[in-house]
């Protein structure tokens, strides 16, 4: 009884709990993660940099593995060598290796069995010195005249010592200063903004016109509405494939039509020239999202009461006056929402370009999302990629702020 009373009192918290958990785990925590990555020189394919290290660390497991392998190779060498000097040298190195193990056990890892252990500067230097001396002695050993198993392999194993010492990869604001100076960030950001402004503007004009048309009763209106949904509903990668076929230089019908009417020089130049490719991407995007924009605005048009038009018509208002003084002001909140969300959507464009041009020709149609994706997943530079993404997020914030100020609309609709 008590429990049910408690549950009733806290019903709100209980019902939001699953959503809050999911948002925290899959939105908020990753955003914080990205924020942290951006302050480190983090590279996933580099063993010494694939995590965030504030302090110096030793990869004890890797160090131990190196010692084990060196011992193994030296034992093989021991069987084949002939000279007394060489045997003495091998013994000396093996003794050093044992001492190195002891040093680690006493000074660094004591009872710790974790792979990566934090160390102070003094211990790290001491370890480095010991490792270096072993490598030097191996060098001396293999310059001696004798029968060895495989000096190259042994030296390759020894070079792993270096990797087992992990320096701090905290880089402060380095990534951000680099992003601001990165030519490719400038060019991709410029491209993305140009694409966003042109395509969203075109979508707004066409979408508004279509919404006004669809708001009038005519035969087949529901059919038009159904067809409008199709480009929006299909996956972007499918739309991109469709257009890449229509644009292709050999058999693309759109590239041939554009050539015939003189828009482009030859069908092959449709996606091979930077300017044409930009145009092609914009057309594909406008084709895919204008119907969606129209439906959004249509939703706004339908809540405008008809009586306003009737009474203004009685007073002799012309239709463009009705549009200017009734439709447009009342549609403003819908236009704001449609514009804002379309702008943010266009700004993060990735899949359309990934499939249609891959960023080409020569990187001229690379969007900033695509660049950040390539930095993170082709070059595995997570720290730098994260900094690019955060700059993007900043631009998103600026865009939102400008819209709210310019259109003077309250995003949460509280001051209605």
């Amino acid at each position, binding site marked *: 009884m008590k429990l049910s009373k408690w549950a009733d009192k806290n019903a709100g918290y209980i019902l939001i709990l*699953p*959503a809050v958990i999911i948002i925290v785990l899959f939105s908020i925590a990753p955003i914080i993660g990205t924020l942290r990555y951006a302050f480190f020189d983090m590279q996933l394919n580099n063993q010494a940099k694939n995590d965030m290290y504030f302090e110096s660390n030793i990869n004890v497991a890797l160090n131990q593995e190196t010692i084990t392998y060196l011992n193994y190779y030296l034992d093989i060498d021991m069987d084949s060598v002939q000279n007394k000097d060489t045997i003495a040298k091998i013994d000396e190195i093996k003794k050093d290796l044992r001492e190195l193990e002891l040093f680690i056990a006493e000074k660094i890892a004591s009872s710790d069995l974790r792979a990566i252990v934090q160390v102070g500067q003094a211990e790290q230097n001491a370890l480095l010195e010991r490792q270096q001396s072993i490598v030097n002695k191996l060098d001396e050993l293999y310059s001696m005249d004798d029968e060895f198993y495989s000096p190259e392999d042994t030296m390759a194993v020894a070079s792993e010592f270096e990797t087992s010492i992990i320096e701090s990869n905290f880089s402060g604001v380095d990534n951000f200063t680099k992003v601001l100076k990165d030519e490719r960030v400038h060019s991709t950001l410029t491209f993305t903004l140009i694409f966003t402004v042109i395509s969203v503007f075109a979508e707004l004009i066409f979408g508004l016109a279509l919404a006004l048309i669809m708001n009038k009763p005519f035969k087949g209106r529901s059919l*038009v509405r159904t067809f409008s949904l199709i480009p929006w509903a299909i996956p*972007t990668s499918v739309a991109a494939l469709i257009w890449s076929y229509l644009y292709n230089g050999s058999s693309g019908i759109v590239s041939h039509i554009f050539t015939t009417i003189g828009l482009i020089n030859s069908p092959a130049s449709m996606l091979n020239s930077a300017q044409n490719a930009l145009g092609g991407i914009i057309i594909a995007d406008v084709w895919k999202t204008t119907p969606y924009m129209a439906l959004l605005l249509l939703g706004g048009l339908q809540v405008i009461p008809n009586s306003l038009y009737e009474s203004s018509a009685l007073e002799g208002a012309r239709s463009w006056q009705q549009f200017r003084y009734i439709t447009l002001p009342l549609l403003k909140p819908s236009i704001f929402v449609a514009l804002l969300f379309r702008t943010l959507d266009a700004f993060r464009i990735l899949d359309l370009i990934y499939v249609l041009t891959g960023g080409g020709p020569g990187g001229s149609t690379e969007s900033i999302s695509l660049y950040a*994706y390539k930095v993170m997943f082709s070059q595995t530079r997570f720290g730098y990629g994260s900094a690019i993404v955060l700059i993007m997020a900043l631009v998103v914030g600026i865009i939102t702020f400008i819209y709210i100020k310019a259109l003077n609309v309250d995003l949460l609709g509280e001051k209605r």
Partner: protein
Amino acid sequence: MNRAKTSTLFKIVIVLYLFIIIFPFFWVAVTSLRPEAEIWGSGALQLKGAAFTTENYKLLFKTPVLNSLKNSLIISTITTIYVTFVASLCAYAIARLDFKFKKLLTVIVLVTSMFPQMIVIGPIYRVFVQLGWTNSYYISLPYSNITLPVAIFILITHFSQIPKEMEESATMDGSSKINTFFKIILPLAAPGIFTAAIIIFIGAWNEFLLSLTLNTNEAWRTATVNISFLRGQFEIFWGQVTAATVVVTIPTLIIVILFQKQIVSGITSGALKE
């Protein structure tokens, strides 16, 4: 301008609009039925005397396209089920119940839907690699990222439209709030919940970036990513590419035709929530 002129112009605009929307699909569908040899050069542009064949589809079904459709279907279904449930609970609480931080929660949901998706992908990728969750159906979990906010906003609109008297009379009868929600509100909100489910499904079906980065193994790729690889190859077989496009578009077409009303309501109530 006289009336007849206006209505002719009106008709022309509508026909042109429909033509622009439909033509790419029509042209791709036609191409997919022609032999590969005919799709090269300007021969592709002529339909007169074209030979028709189902060869492209036969070849396509030897590639993993069906498997990728199955992956998409399973991942989208899992996402739809749990996100619809979670979003319903949360949206009802926001629409009708009182609790602290309500405004903060609404703002957070809104803001997470505005950020570029790239902002979450790095940490999610790393955690998935560490947990061994890449190339699995666990990918449905981060799909909440793109589907949960919009679902919550659609459902807030729908729950707000249910008359308050329903809850009040239930409370008078001594029913607890959570009980009222499951027994009385949920059935009443079923159309709205269905609308949200459709929008979630389409969103999950169309997802690209998470699928591209997390399920990289060909056996686990979703349809959207899988067909993008057809284009990436050095030599492009347009017959197969267009056939794949048709096959992947068909499920979307079916959903649009069956549920157009719900989709339109979802689009407008999700964005124009006030």
